[in-house]
């Protein structure tokens, strides 16, 4: 799956319960994208909304996320601070490009 960064309106950060890790990553992504027309939400992986353009989720949850959000770009990450995969998504949103997942 892939999507052009200019088409992204909503990023969902998903974790198991939607109360811890997804909240932390969503807050840093939201801050970085402040001023851009991109909504950043955090949800449990089983409740990923249909209008998510890009889903960021921990590597260990990626299969669950792909089952829950078929046809969506799902980008796995491992680190909550400075993850290269997350950085790549943010760079694409800031400078243009394609997001694969």
């Amino acid at each position, binding site marked *: 799956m892939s999507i052009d960064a200019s088409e992204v309106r909503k990023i969902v950060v998903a974790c*198991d*319960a*939607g*109360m*811890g*890790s997804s*909240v*932390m*990553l969503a*807050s*840093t992504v939201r*801050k970085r994208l402040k001023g851009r027309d991109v909504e950043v939400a955090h949800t*449990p992986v*089983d409740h990923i909304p249909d209008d998510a353009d890009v889903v960021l989720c*921990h*590597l*260990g*949850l990626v299969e669950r996320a792909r089952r829950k959000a078929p046809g969506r770009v799902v980008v796995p990450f491992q*680190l*909550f*601070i400075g993850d290269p995969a997350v950085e790549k998504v943010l760079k694409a949103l800031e400078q243009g490009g394609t997001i694969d997942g």
Partner: protein
Amino acid sequence: MADVVIGELLSPSSVRLGQVAPDWEAAVRQVGGLLVDAGAVEDGYVDAMVERERDVAPTFVGEGVAIPHGTLASRSLIRRDALCAVQFPAGVDWQGDRVVLCIGIAARGDLHVPVLAQLAELLMEPDRAEALRRAGTAEQLLALLTPEESAPT
């Protein structure tokens, strides 16, 4: 969100400094015990916190910090949103990573979001992350974790 009062979520009585734990599971049980003592969760929530670390993924977030919390299924065991903090100065092996500070979470809503956002900010700045890990009093730790937009000026 700016009117969040950290005291409602995280009181000094739910902060423990200078603790020791032989392994991550014992550490999580200490953290969960504080949430039980605060009346924030049912006892079963603590088992769900252990299950989350073991079966889903460790909640290590970097810079020596983990944020243990329950699973989606265990949300029904939460009575009110609350946080707690436990410092382990000697470090605890966290399934391969080293953790010196746990921020325990029980949340059904989004009240705690500004505090976790503040935590994320601190961890991106090495000096403030170090200050958080080395906090000598509960008040110091709470001051660092207080969302900046709601901090007293």
